[in-house]
């Protein structure tokens, strides 16, 4: 349970800080420091047992399906890391109180910081590699927020993005690596995986696992060539740099290598990849650091170099090297955090971080200078500081490493790196604190208050302690942690400043001497370098990124050009492609053997009319009106086909719908331009024509293939048999619609109703805004007859209205038994009413209508639904119909079916929707005309 508490503390603090962002600064610091301190206390409590060899564990089942549990453990390595995180975290929080200006939102800052702390603790404590992944990515995210904390600064934003891209990207590789590792090891539980090194290394997946995991580790730990984000992350506030970029986040990669050491290390591949990367990084970082002028940048490159050192040590794959690495982790954390804080203080007091504008600060800021110098000494590996010991151990180990058979290469390069690090370290201290006095922007900088300087005092004392009393202070921890790293009994440990005279001491001494000389002769090289165009990773990265974004944009725009023609072409093309795929299946798409029906002359003529009319519609580029006329012909032929082929209901529907559709299109055509559309290019038309032909032939062939097959038992034989006894009607189509498949019909009328609503919503505002203006500007596009309402026509419609309503009623009432039904009846009624609109005009007719379209649609849907629900009252299923025959005196036998209620609903919706579409559309035209008249009057007046 303490583990869970340890885990939750920082997050809880982050949450509290986020919620209480308006609270006082003191409160913020209190919360953050309190959380860190409490964590540290917990850790200390647990430490004895852990060091004694019994790791603490805790587990809460979370996602068993993934093998992802909230499984934590605290082993010595975790203890070491968690200690670093919490300890330095505490100091950084205190430091931040002094560092951040009063106006800065400390609540937010500390909230992010705590978030980050929690994520780091999570990495340290995870006993499940998937869980570790979560925390891993969380550190990337929270560091993104921290680096970009000064959001107004372009470099902060860019630095944050770059860090996120690189470390986040590496994290993704790590995800793949971890998952593969889990696959290979058969478990995602870290403790289990650590025991299966042999299995994993024997797995064919091992190279992939290793590569992917290393990608994750190297990006996080800024190893060459993924190092470039780190210097740019220096745009963050200095406490962040001190925390993330010295002590914790960048070490996560090192930690990961150490963590997985028992599983992954030991192979040649490991050695070559890890050790050489570390070595190159160490050299490279140190070399660059020597020639940078920004305090934090120098520290950043030195960090890269030092991280390379640790990685290289782990790459050696020997227990002793691992020991050195572990100890150096501790050392580096101490002195580098102190140095960052120091740089922050200098920056804070002098207003600059440019080393060329500083000098002789020792006199003004003695305490700062002392601390800085001591920390630098540790970095340079000078006795009696801890850095000396670990560097010595490194050099020692380099002698044992055999790279590529050339045993001299590694020690040589290691020594060079050590030399360089001595040089930049010395430069860092001497240029700032000694020599000619220069104080940047501020006249008299001075030592800051305790909040800022205190933490570095502590850190420098620790660094000193590591050198003077290594075995006492660090011994047990390093020993136990090393044991955890190598996954066996810890090696014998002997940390001391003096090991007698040995090659490592010689190399070390050489490094110091040459390093000092190098510093002395540095200036000409620096001048020479200044003249060269430096290979700036940031520019490269930004340039590449900008190029990628631009190319993406181009590609995305090119693909997603707003072109309906393209959308449709794709759709048709895919359908045709699928048709070809199907035709290529073994057996293809054969026609069947069913006997065909002979065609009568009428049928042939009708077919001919259909084909010609279709051709004309397609070819009719210039005259849209005529195209409509030919559409009518096609509709007529299809209605005839339905009649001929035993589908009276369909014929009725087709006839009625056709009329309404034509009216609709004419109404729209009135307002649409009638200009002949520009022809598209010939290749394009040919392409489309080819596609159309293939699509047509394919569809036609599919129809032919199906029609010439015999059909086995269809479900409709049930419908046939049950329509009269079970549905109470002899028109099987109608019974199917209102009973067997009434649910379809319910959906269908809802579609119509929605269409009506959508049309209303579209047309209602059409008289305003741009559309309204355009309507007002609308002009006759052909000479018009002055006669609005031809007399004969009007008279005929007056007689036709009651007649048509009667026919509608008739079709409605008999629909269950004979062709007809609510839908067709409703269309007839609608057409009858529309005729009134046509003949007598919108206003006249609209005044005389009794029911609006909206209530019709609403009531229709309600009636249909309620009819369906009615059956529930009788314990039957939704939409169950019932019917009965009643004997009424004089009238005789009368059948009543609930399906009729349902059909009433259908009819209401259909009338409502049709009227809505046409009346609204004609109304827009109406308003257009009215607006036109007004405009005419205005212009003539």
């Amino acid at each position, binding site marked *: 349970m303490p583990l869970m508490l340890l885990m939750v503390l920082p997050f809880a603090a982050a949450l509290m800080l986020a919620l209480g962002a308006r609270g006082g600064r003191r409160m913020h610091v209190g919360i953050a420091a309190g959380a860190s301190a409490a964590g540290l206390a917990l850790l200390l409590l647990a430490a004895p047992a852990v060091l004694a060899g019994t790791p603490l564990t805790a587990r809460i089942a979370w996602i068993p399906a993934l093998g992802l549990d909230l499984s934590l453990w605290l082993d010595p390595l975790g203890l070491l890391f968690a200690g670093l995180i919490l300890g330095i975290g505490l100091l950084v929080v205190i430091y931040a109180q002094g560092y951040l200006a009063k106006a800065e939102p400390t609540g937010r800052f500390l909230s992010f910081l705590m978030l980050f702390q929690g994520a780091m603790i999570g990495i340290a404590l995870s006993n499940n590699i998937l869980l570790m992944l979560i925390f891993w990515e969380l550190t990337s995210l929270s560091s993104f927020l921290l680096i970009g904390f000064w959001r107004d600064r372009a470099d902060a934003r860019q630095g944050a993005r770059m860090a996120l891209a690189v470390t986040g990207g590496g994290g993704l590789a790590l995800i793949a690596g971890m998952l593969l590792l889990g696959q290979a090891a058969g478990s995602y539980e870290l403790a289990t995986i650590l025991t299966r090194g042999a299995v994993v290394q024997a797995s064919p997946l091992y190279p992939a696992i290793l590569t992917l995991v290393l990608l994750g580790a190297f990006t996080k730990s800024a190893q060459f060539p993924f190092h470039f984000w780190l210097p740019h992350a220096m745009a963050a506030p200095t406490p962040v740099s001190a925390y993330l970029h010295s002590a914790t986040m960048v070490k996560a990669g090192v930690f990961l290598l150490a963590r997985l050491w028992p599983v992954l290390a030991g192979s040649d591949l490991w050695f070559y990849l890890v050790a050489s990367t570390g070595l190159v990084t160490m050299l490279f970082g140190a070399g660059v650091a020597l020639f940078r002028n920004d305090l934090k940048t120098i520290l950043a490159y030195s960090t890269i170099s030092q991280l390379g050192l640790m990685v290289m040590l782990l790459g050696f794959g020997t227990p002793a090297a691992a020991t050195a690495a572990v100890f150096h982790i501790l050392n580096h954390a101490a002195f580098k955090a102190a140095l960052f804080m120091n740089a922050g203080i200098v920056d804070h007091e002098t207003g600059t971080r440019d080393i060329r504008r500083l000098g002789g600060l020792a006199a003004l800021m003695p305490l700062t200078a002392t601390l800085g110098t001591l920390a630098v000494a540790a970095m340079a590996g000078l006795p009696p500081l801890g850095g000396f010991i670990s560097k010595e151990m490194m050099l020692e180990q380099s002698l044992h490493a055999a790279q590529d058979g050339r045993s001299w290469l590694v020690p040589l390069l290691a020594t060079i790196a050590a030399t360089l690090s001595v040089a930049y370290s010395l430069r860092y201290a001497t240029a700032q604190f000694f020599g000619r006095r220069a104080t940047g922007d501020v006249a008299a900088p001075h030592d800051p208050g305790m909040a800022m300087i205190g933490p570095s005092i502590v850190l420098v004392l620790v660094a000193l302690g590591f050198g003077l009393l290594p075995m006492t202070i660090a011994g047990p921890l390093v020993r136990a942690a090393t044991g955890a790293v190598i996954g066996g009994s810890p090696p014998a440990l002997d940390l001391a400043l003096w090991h007698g005279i040995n090659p490592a001491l010689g190399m070390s001494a050489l490094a110091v001497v040459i390093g000092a000389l190098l510093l002395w002769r540095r200036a000409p090289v620096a001048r020479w370098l200044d003249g060269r165009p430096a290979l700036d990773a940031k520019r490269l990265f930004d340039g590449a990124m900008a190029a990628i974004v631009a190319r993406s944009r181009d590609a995305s725009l090119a693909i997603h050009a707003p072109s309906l023609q393209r959308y449709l072409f794709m759709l048709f093309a895919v359908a045709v492609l699928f048709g070809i795929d199907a035709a290529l299946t073994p057996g293809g798409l054969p026609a069947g053997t069913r006997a065909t029906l002979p065609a009568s002359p009428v049928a042939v003529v009708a077919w001919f009319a259909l084909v010609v009319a279709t051709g004309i519609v397609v070819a009719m580029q210039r005259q849209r009106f005529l195209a409509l006329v030919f559409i009518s012909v096609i509709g007529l032929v299809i209605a005839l086909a339905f009649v001929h082929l035993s589908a009276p209901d369909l014929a009725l529907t087709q006839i009625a719908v056709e009329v309404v559709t034509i009216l609709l299109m004419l109404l729209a055509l009135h307002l649409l331009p009638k200009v002949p559309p520009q022809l598209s290019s010939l290749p394009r038309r040919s392409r489309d024509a080819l596609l159309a032909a293939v699509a047509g032939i394919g569809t036609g062939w599919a129809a032919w293939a199906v029609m010439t097959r015999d059909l086995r038992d269809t479900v409709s034989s049930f419908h046939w048999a049950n329509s009269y006894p079970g549905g109470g009607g002899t028109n099987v189509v109608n019974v199917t619609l209102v009973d067997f498949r009434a649910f379809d019909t319910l959906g269908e009328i809802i579609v119509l109703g929605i269409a009506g609503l959508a049309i209303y919503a579209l047309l209602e505002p059409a008289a305003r805004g741009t559309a309204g203006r355009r309507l007002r500007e609308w002009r006759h596009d052909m000479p018009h*007859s002055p*006669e*609005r309402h*031809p007399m*004969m026509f009007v*008279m*005929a419609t007056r007689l036709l209205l009651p007649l048509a309503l009667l026919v509608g009623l008739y079709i409605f009432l008999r629909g269950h038994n004979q062709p007809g039904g609510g839908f067709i009846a409703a269309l007839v009624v609608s057409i009858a009413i529309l005729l009134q609109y046509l003949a*007598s005009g919108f206003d*006249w007719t609209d005044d005389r209508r009794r029911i609006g379209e909206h209530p019709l649609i609403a009531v229709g849907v309600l009636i249909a639904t309620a009819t369906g629900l009615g059956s529930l009252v009788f314990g039957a299923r939704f939409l169950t119909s019932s019917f009965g025959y009643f004997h009424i005196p004089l009238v005789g036998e009368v059948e009543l079916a609930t399906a009729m209620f349902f059909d009433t609903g259908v009819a209401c919706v259909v009338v409502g929707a049709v009227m809505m579409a046409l009346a609204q559309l004609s109304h827009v035209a109406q308003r257009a005309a009215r607006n036109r008249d007004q405009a005419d009057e205005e212009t003539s007046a």
Partner: protein
Amino acid sequence: MSGIVEIVIAGLILLGAAFVLIGSWGLVRLPSTMERLHGPTKATTLGLGGLLLASVVFFQVRLGVWTAHELLISLFLFITAPISANMIAKVHLHRARTGDRPDHDGIAGPPPRPDPDGEGEWATFEAPHTDTQASIENP
């Protein structure tokens, strides 16, 4: 089915079909729009009438009941056909007058004015007066 009835039915069918065909033939062969307008009236009246009568008798004989509802078709056609003809004629008049091809007037030439002395004009050319009783122009 007795022979005479059969002959009657067959005769009616053939009569109807003949007039339908003649009507359409007229539509094709007559020289201009107004003349062509006369063709289809045969199909509507005697053509369909004959066929419908045949159908009435046919189903009377076949099903044994009087199925007079075919006559309704004729009723509706009698109401609608003149309106169609009237509207098409209006279109012809209107377009012949305003269009770019005045030769559509055909044999009869352009229509005379309604009242040689008066001011009046055909409704297609002039909005109907609203003050006469015959006017149906809606306010």
